[in-house]
């Protein structure tokens, strides 16, 4: 029995037709539950949402009105869409780039023999595992213009801090700062792991050539970490494009729509205004934008890889 199965497994690559054919039922049986769950809870809702985006429906009326691409034309022409696009791009770019830069620098600094290094690593990772809603609530208090720690600290060095979350000029920056704070730890841990893979002899060679620490970082570390940077920037960008909870808790998209990211824009239409078709159109456009952004990043990373 055991031998037969082992033989079948061994036989698979040798006789692709017969072997694969026999493996199909087993593969389906093993993958079936996962595929079923995926199809029911991910693929079907996604397709249903695209379908819904062609209708005008509040989720409760007995009749859905088919409106074709009206939701999309309305969306693209709207002032709110233009604003949300701008806010989301600024948030995503700001958060991603800042978290990458700070994450890399921190990882390089932590990648040394310092006493209590494990403690620092834990400290940097803490924000990552803090629930976003809890973090948002705490930061809202920290950013309070008169009582908050942020402005009180600024006051100690003679700076009069802004009314962070109620000033349209500052609110998005405040949300980006918290987004970075929440993300950096993850980047640090991944960069630290990647740094272990950089051959020591390259640093020794650089040292022999008289490279300064900055030159070593610029010409050895950063190029060798390029695949890691690509991975981190793609995942951060996808996360950032979909940010919702942080904005919901900290600003509710305000003041004056200055933090009305796509996630919140979608929430407003889907769950506050009950315009499910329009909200589905927002979701699909969001998906398309993330898809294109990832493709562009992929191209850039490959181009960069070849040049290096």
């Amino acid at each position, binding site marked *: 029995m055991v031998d037969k199965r082992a033989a079948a497994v061994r036989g698979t690559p040798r006789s692709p037709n017969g072997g694969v054919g026999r493996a199909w039922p087993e593969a389906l049986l093993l993958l079936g539950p996962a595929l079923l769950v995926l199809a029911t809870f991910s693929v079907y809702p996604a397709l249903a949402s695209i379908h819904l985006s062609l209708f005008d429906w*509040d*989720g*409760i*009326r*007995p009749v859905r009105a088919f409106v074709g691409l009206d939701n999309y034309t309305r969306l693209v022409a709207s002032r709110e869409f233009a604003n949300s696009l701008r806010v989301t791009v600024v948030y995503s770019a700001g958060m991603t780039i800042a978290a990458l830069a700070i994450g890399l620098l921190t990882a390089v600094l932590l990648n040394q023999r310092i006493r209590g290094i494990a403690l620092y690593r834990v400290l940097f990772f803490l924000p990552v595992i803090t629930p976003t809603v809890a973090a948002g609530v705490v930061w*809202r208090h920290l950013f*309070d*213009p*008169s*009582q908050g720690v942020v402005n009180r600290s600024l006051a100690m060095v003679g700076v009069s801090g802004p*009314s962070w*979350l*109620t*000033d*349209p000029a500052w609110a998005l920056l405040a949300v980006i700062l918290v987004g970075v704070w929440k993300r950096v730890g993850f980047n640090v841990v991944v960069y630290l792991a990647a740094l272990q893979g950089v051959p020591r002899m390259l640093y020794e060679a650089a040292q022999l050539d008289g490279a300064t620490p900055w030159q070593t970082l610029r010409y050895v570390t950063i190029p060798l970490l390029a695949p890691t940077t690509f991975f981190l920037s793609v995942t951060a960008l996808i996360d950032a494009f979909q940010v919702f909870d942080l904005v919901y808790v900290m600003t*509710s*998209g*305000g*003041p*004056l*729509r200055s933090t009305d990211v796509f996630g919140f824009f979608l929430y*407003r239409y889907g*769950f*506050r*205004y*009950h*315009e499910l078709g329009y909200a589905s159109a927002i979701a699909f456009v969001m998906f398309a934008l993330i898809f294109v952004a990832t493709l562009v990043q992929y191209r850039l990373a490959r181009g960069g890889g070849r040049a290096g």
Partner: protein
Amino acid sequence: MTSLARKLAILALFALLGAATAQQLSFWHYWDGANGQVLQGLIDQYQAENPGVTIEAVFVPGSELVTRLQTAIQGRQTPSLAIADLVTVPLLTGSGALVPLDDYIAASNLDLDDYFPGPMVYGIRDGRRYSLPVSASNLALFWNKDLFEQAGLDPDVPPRTWSELIAFGQTIRERTGAWGFELFTQGGEGTSWQWQVFLWSAGGEVLSADLGSPAFHSAAGERALGMWADLVHEHGVSTIAPWGLFGRGEAAMVMDGSWMTQFFPMQVRFPLGSAIFPYADDGVPASNLGGEQVFLFASDAATEAAAWDFVAWFSSTEVQVEWNRNTGFMPIRASVADDPAYRAWVASARPLLQPFVDVMPYARARPPITNYPRVSDLLAEYVLEAVHARMTPAQALGAAESEIAPLLR
């Protein structure tokens, strides 16, 4: 063995008989904590008085209720009856799943004229009534007596008009450094429903009487919005800041809800006063209503009738007095507000609530339209454009009007 079989047979017979006569109702609500217990107590009382009727009260978090009802209506798994925030009632009456109540009301001794008029604008579609108010809350003024005293003002005399609000506020700002009045500047519904109180008390309306067009872009509207902008920029009485200054003693006055008569005393460290909110000098008192409405889902005739019987019982003056005394909700009927037992309870247990009860006849409801949340967000956005001095009140109201008008057609 035979005796066991006989016992089982008798049990089964009783179960069958029970199923034939007993009425099972499910009631979805979002009254949590103490309010939920009060509801359960009243349900127990009703069940004791009406053997054969079982009401299962199902708690659904308020933030999920509409989504749950949407799903239930689509899946035809609706409860027998439910409550919802009055703002969502127009959406629900469009579902086709609710029961018109007119015939039930006509056949019962429920006197609709006894209800305060504000919340009654909800629940009507195509001339038929689908819901009734079961609880209410509204807005009025709270003030900090310590700050009044520090500013040399009489701590027991609140401002009655906008002029007094400004004058008192300036005195407080000058003499104590605290802000005079806390404005809700976070946008959304909070800004929108507070501003509507100013609009109404200046004699304005949010929408036209047929709800088909915006009416806030008027002289009264400009006056109400001018008041908000001036409180910040002209008079220096208010500031743009996260909500909560009043609670921390950093602002001397605030507009807040009747529910805060319960929570402020537990949260603040200063003596409180409450009063009808100051109104425009030649205007009228006004307040904005919150609260819940109850409605029945279409089902078989026996279930609908049983559910209505509970609603009629729950809406009676007697039960409502109990309900309001134990929850702190505002009376929805004049006979409750005038009830000696209720008045005695307010006077002894919750004196801060009295102005809220007094303003109930002047309390208005937000426009009962399906897309109110979107209209309200837009209105709030432009109110803040004026408060941030990025637009004049007239410009802001004009821009809001041009964006809201197409949504009402």
